[in-house]
Each structure stands twice: as structure tokens, then as C-alpha cells.
């Protein structure tokens, strides 16, 4: 009998610990992509059975049943049924159950078992169940369900080999003389009743121990302490983004400079050498330098997700979001948008109400994404004194926090207006399971960080590299005559001349207009393009040792710097966001709307900032 590679899929309710189990089973060998035609994430990895046989394992989105209420759940149903385009029907289904919530999780499990597919059950998180004083009998559950039940603790790698062996055995049984057959259909109320009976039958003892998470919730969901804790937490996150990353950033910056010097020492002076040092290394280096900050931010977001706090934050924020016509569900996509609007916009798929979702997509770019950090960092470091406002609270960090707050207020105001005009409709609801608190594992956090850091680096390595090179070409061709400014003669210079006329009223000089052109590809490129354009402007090696910040101070007034910051709070400077919006809204209408309203806001706010600053004598 031929033993080609076969596929197995993890299915279960949300919060069954599927992702942790998936990580434990597949390690770092994971491929993340989208299902074709939809924007639901497909996570696949390679699992080695104890026999050494490889299995393609898919982590399906969490689902409550086949009566689907979201695109995520619909994908899960279609994959299991073998109806999903581009995805073969899984040969074996692995139902993941939260051992401490059997009564609920067995409802969907029965629905899956009715299909009569080769199935194995992972009784997951048995350690947390026993923490709650719950002793379970896996054998009793196995005889009730009629399929193998394996106890697992993903985070401690317990039961993984047994689960792998069971997956292999289930496939062999399916290929044998008596494959599993579909079972009679049972209605939801009956399944619920049966689930309760089975859960009781499998429970050996249950001590009424006060659950740990109830005590934590008492504090974190406290009507006024809860929001204070959330605000404090977010403030700490933003201070950490600024201070923790600094030493590593200095290191990376030193590395980029050393590389440039190395190239200069090896190659003779030529246009090619300038392209490498001023174009490639300076351009990509200026962006990669911000990887540490992005990782710190992602670390906190992952931590909040993994501990279960993110859902509490949604609970706390729901009232406020309801005030602008959204729900707490929008909080998670919007919070993710602080890292990057693209995963944020993609995360809106969990919002069931279409108008709610559209509104969230449209305001997501107003959340200060990490790509703006490089821009903010350079400007703040150059123009805002590094003084202490309070012990441990720097003025620079405070200004950064302020920029985030302005973005959030802008987003809320826009949401309020949209929900009363363009996306008018019935108020959306908010129904969400609050998962149990968990200690995240270092491995899961590291894996998540690695995956996100890699995506960023790949972007820096491809798109930003291209932009840096194209910009260098635009800046250096056609060549200027001897003794004339290269920028003025270049293609980019001519484009910027046109833009500068429009930008002059809001205090932007031509260099800024020039920087805005390539930063349409990615915001962070504004920094490297400013660096490139000022390096070209001075044109001599002596000036190159100078920091970009120092040079900005020579060329810009404080009013211009503040207007530039205000512009970046609102400007839709990222083609990827526009592209992902087009994909998520199925057309050009909404991305076009997003582009125009954000540019209009950016222009007005940069202008107001500039005129106000000038009126206060900062021009």
C-alpha cells in the first residue's frame, strides 16, 4: 500500500489551545499564507509521526459549529467538508478540546464526529483543568465518543508522541476494511444535552476551588481600576518601545556605518559605490534599524493575546467603542494596527457586522503603525529636548505618546462621522468569549515574534530596497553639470518642485516634498530618503559623519518639524495598506475613499499645526 504524504487538520472551538498545540507539533517549520480567494489565514506545518512519516498539519480557524457566522468559521467548515478550493480534504481530523470546558467544546466535537471522517481527539490543557480542581477520565470519554482520546499539554509537550501515533493509526483504519462511517444527525439542543452528560461522565472529581482567573478578573475588569490598569499598561508599552530598543538600535546603526566604510575602502570612488553606500546600505539600514522597536511592540501585543488579556481589553473598551458606533471587537484589529495596518485590517475579518468592519478598516491607518516610528523617532530626537518631565518619564516619550493619542482621537472622530453618514446602520453588537488566563510559553512568543520580524525584514529587503535604489536613481539622474546642485537637476527634484508649490502653505520645503514621493511605498522610507537627499545635497564625505537629525535641524524650523509629524499622523503613506484594503473590500471604491479622506485630513492638520506654531513664534 502506498504511503504518500497525508494531511491532518486541527479543529476546535476558539481558545481550545489549538495554536499552542500546533506550535508544539510542528515546531518552527510553519508556512503562513492565505486561503485563495478569501483573506483567512492558512497555517500549515510539518509534523513527524513517531514512525518518522511526515504529515502536513493544518491549523484551522477556531469555530463554534458548522452553522457559520464569520468568514473564518466558513473556511473551517469548507476545509473539513473538502469544499475549499486549493485545499485537499484533510485525511485525519484532530479535534482539540479544552479539558476544563468539555461541556461546551463537546458540542462542536459531536458535529464534527457526525461526518464519520477519520478522527482523533486531543484532550488539551489537562494541566489547567487539574489546576481548576478537575480530574478527568480520558478512557471514559474515549468510549463515549468512539474515537481515540489523547491527553495533551501542548506547552509541556505532553502526549505529543501518542497523538502523532493516533493520527497515523486513524489514517490506517480509514484505509482498512472498516473505515469510520457517518453518524446520524443530532440537533443542537440534543448535542448540548449529550455534551453535558459526557462531560459529567468523564469527570472523576471536581473540587469547588475558586478559579484563579475569576480573581484576576475581579481586578482587571474592575469598573474603574480596569481602565486605569489598561491605560497604564499601554503607556508602559510605548515607553518600552522607545527605551528598550535603543541599545540594539545603536548597534545596528554602527553596523550599517561600518559596512558603508568597508565598501568605501574596497571600491574606488564611482557612481556604483555611491549607489551601494548612499542608496542601498543607507536606505535599507535606516529602516532595519527600527526592527528592535517593532519587535518590542509585537512582543507586548503577542503577550496580551497569549495571556488572554486582549479579550479583557476588548471588554473594557467596548463601551467607548460603542460610543462611536463600533464594538470591542474592533479594539483588537485597531491595536494590531499600531504594529502595522495590514495585519490589523486583515484581523477585521473577526468582526461579523459588515458596516462595523468597513468602518474599522477605514480608520485602521489612523492608528500609529510601527512604520511611522522611524519618522517620529528621527524628528523627535532632533527637535524635542531629551529632558525628564517626571522621574522615568521623558519628554520625548511623552511627545511620542501624544502623537499616538492624536491618531486615536482622529480615528474615533472619523468613525463617529462615518457611522452617521457613509456606513450608517444598526448599532453593532458585541459577543465574545473571555478566555482563561494563561502563562504564555517562551517558545510560542519567540515563534510569533520571529514570524512577524521576518515579514518586516522581507519587506525591508525587497520593497524598501527597490524604493531606495529607484529613489537614488531619480535623485542622481540626469547628472548635474559641474558645480550645480545634483538634486535640482534630477528627475525627483523636478517632481518635488511641483509638489512643493502645493506643500508650501503648510510649511513643507522641497526636501520634504521629495521625501513624500518614495514614502508612498512605505512610510519608513521617508527617513532614508531624507537621509539620502541631505547626503546628496551636501555631497561631501565630511558631512556624511553628521547625524541626519543634526542636518534636519539646520534645514527645518520647529514649526516645519511639528507640521511634518502632524502630516504623518494622518497621511495614507503606504501602498500596501491601500492594496490590502482593496482586497478586503473587493474593489477600488473604499481604498480610493480612504486615500482621499486621509490626504485631506493630513493636509489640514499639518497646516493647522504649522500656522499655530508660527503664530507662537516657532517658525
Amino acid at each position: 500500500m502506498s504511503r504518500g504524504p497525508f494531511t491532518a487538520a486541527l479543529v476546535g472551538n476558539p481558545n481550545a489551545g489549538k495554536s499552542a498545540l500546533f506550535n508544539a507539533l510542528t515546531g518552527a517549520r510553519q508556512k503562513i499564507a492565505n486561503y485563495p480567494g478569501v483573506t483567512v489565514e492558512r497555517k500549515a506545518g510539518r509534523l513527524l509521526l513517531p514512525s518518522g512519516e511526515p504529515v502536513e498539519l493544518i491549523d484551522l480557524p477556531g469555530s463554534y459549529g458548522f452553522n457559520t457566522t464569520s468568514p473564518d468559521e466558513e473556511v473551517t467548515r469548507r476545509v473539513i467538508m473538502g469544499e475549499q478550493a486549493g485545499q485537499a480534504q484533510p485525511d485525519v481530523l484532530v479535534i482539540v478540546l479544552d479539558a476544563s470546558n468539555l461541556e461546551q467544546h463537546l458540542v462542536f466535537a459531536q458535529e464534527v464526529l457526525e461526518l464519520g471522517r477519520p478522527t482523533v481527539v486531543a484532550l488539551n490543557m489537562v494541566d489547567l483543568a487539574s489546576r481548576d480542581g478537575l480530574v478527568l477520565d480520558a478512557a471514559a470519554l474515549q468510549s463515549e465518543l468512539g474515537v481515540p482520546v489523547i491527553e495533551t499539554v501542548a506547552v509541556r509537550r505532553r502526549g505529543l508522541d501518542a497523538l502523532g501515533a493516533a493520527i497515523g493509526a486513524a489514517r490506517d483504519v480509514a484505509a482498512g476494511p472498516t473505515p469510520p462511517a457517518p453518524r446520524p444527525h443530532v440537533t443542537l439542543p440534543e448535542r448540548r444535552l449529550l455534551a453535558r452528560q459526557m462531560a459529567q461522565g468523564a469527570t472523576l472529581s471536581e473540587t469547588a476551588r475558586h478559579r484563579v482567573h475569576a480573581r484576576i478578573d475581579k481586578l482587571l475588569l474592575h469598573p474603574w481600576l480596569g481602565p486605569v490598569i489598561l491605560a497604564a499598561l499601554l503607556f508602559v508599552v510605548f515607553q518600552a518601545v522607545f527605551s528598550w530598543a535603543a541599545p540594539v538600535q545603536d548597534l545596528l546603526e554602527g553596523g550599517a556605518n561600518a559596512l558603508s566604510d568597508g565598501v568605501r575602502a574596497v571600491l574606488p570612488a564611482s557612481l556604483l559605490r555611491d549607489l551601494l553606500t548612499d542608496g542601498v546600505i543607507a536606505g535599507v539600514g535606516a529602516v532595519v534599524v527600527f526592527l528592535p522597536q517593532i519587535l518590542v511592540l509585537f512582543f507586548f501585543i503577542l503577550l496580551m493575546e497569549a495571556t488572554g488579556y486582549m479579550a479583557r481589553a476588548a471588554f473594557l473598551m467596548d463601551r467607548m467603542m460603542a460610543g462611536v458606533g463600533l464594538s470591542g471587537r474592533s479594539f483588537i484589529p485597531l491595536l494590531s494596527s499600531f504594529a502595522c495596518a495590514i495585519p490589523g485590517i486583515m484581523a477585521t475579518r473577526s468582526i461579523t457586522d459588515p458596516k462595523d468592519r468597513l468602518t474599522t478598516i477605514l480608520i485602521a491607518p489612523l492608528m500609529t503603525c510601527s512604520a511611522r516610528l522611524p519618522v517620529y523617532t528621527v524628528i523627535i530626537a532632533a527637535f524635542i529636548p531629551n529632558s525628564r518631565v517626571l522621574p522615568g518619564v521623558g519628554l520625548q516619550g511623552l511627545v511620542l505618546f501624544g502623537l499616538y493619542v492624536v491618531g486615536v482621537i482622529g480615528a474615533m472622530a472619523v468613525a463617529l462621522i462615518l457611522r452617521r453618514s457613509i456606513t450608517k446602520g444598526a448599532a453593532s453588537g458585541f459577543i465574545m468569549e473571555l478566555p482563561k488566563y494563561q502563562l504564555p510559553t517562551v517558545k510560542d512568543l519567540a515563534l510569533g515574534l520571529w514570524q512577524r520580524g521576518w515579514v518586516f525584514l522581507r519587506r525591508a529587503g525587497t520593497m524598501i530596497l527597490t524604493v531606495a535604489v529607484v529613489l537614488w536613481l531619480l535623485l542622481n539622474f540626469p547628472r548635474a553639470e559641474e558645480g550645480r546642485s545634483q538634486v535640482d537637476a534630477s528627475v525627483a527634484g523636478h517632481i518635488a518642485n511641483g509638489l512643493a508649490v502645493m506643500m508650501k502653505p503648510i510649511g513643507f520645503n522641497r526636501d520634504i516634498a521629495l521625501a513624500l514621493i518614495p514614502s508612498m511605498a512605505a512610510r519608513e522610507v521617508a527617513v532614508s530618503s531624507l537621509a539620502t537627499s541631505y547626503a546628496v545635497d551636501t555631497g561631501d564625505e565630511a558631512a556624511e559623519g553628521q547625524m541626519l537629525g543634526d542636518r534636519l535641524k539646520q534645514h527645518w524650523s520647529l514649526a516645519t518639524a511639528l507640521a511634518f509629524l502632524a502630516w504623518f499622523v494622518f497621511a495614507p503613506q503606504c501602498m500596501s495598506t491601500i492594496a490590502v484594503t482593496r482586497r478586503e473590500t473587493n474593489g477600488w471604491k473604499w481604498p480610493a475613499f480612504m486615500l482621499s479622506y486621509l490626504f485631506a485630513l493630513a493636509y489640514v492638520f499639518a497646516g493647522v499645526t504649522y500656522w499655530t506654531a508660527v503664530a507662537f513664534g516657532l517658525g
Partner: protein
Amino acid sequence: MTLDELPQGHMARLAAIDWSALVPEEAERLRALGFDTGAEVRLAYRGVLFGRDPLAIEIGRMTVALRRVHARAMHVEQPAESATA
């Protein structure tokens, strides 16, 4: 009495749910989470600020957040002595 009128920390049994008062998708989601006639619930937390919205409801071994508008569609009956804090 409806679920949103239940005092905080109190247990009750869902007596009747007016499904027609709910958006169909939300009704489906609530059913999937175990909200149905006969289920035991406890109002664990109320949200922040003045609306005291949303509500955190303990049902089975889960805690589910929902809005007052959902809770208003659920009629509950409290056993005579159920005041467990």
C-alpha cells in the same frame, strides 16, 4: 426579570429567550455559546463607565461578554436563595 436586571454576582436560570429581538447571526453565536432555555448563568461583571455595558456572563465554565441589548432579550428566573456573591 431580564438578564440585564440581574444583580451583579447573582446566579439565575434562563427561562425564555426572545430570539426574534436579536440579529440572526448574533442569535446563532449566542446559541453556539450555550445560551438557551434552561442554562444556568451568573452575572459576573458589568462594564465600565455609566452605561455599565457590556456584561460578562458566566455560563458553564466560560465567561462570555455581551451587550445589555442582548441580555434584555433573555428572561431569567432566580431560585429563591441564589445570592452567591
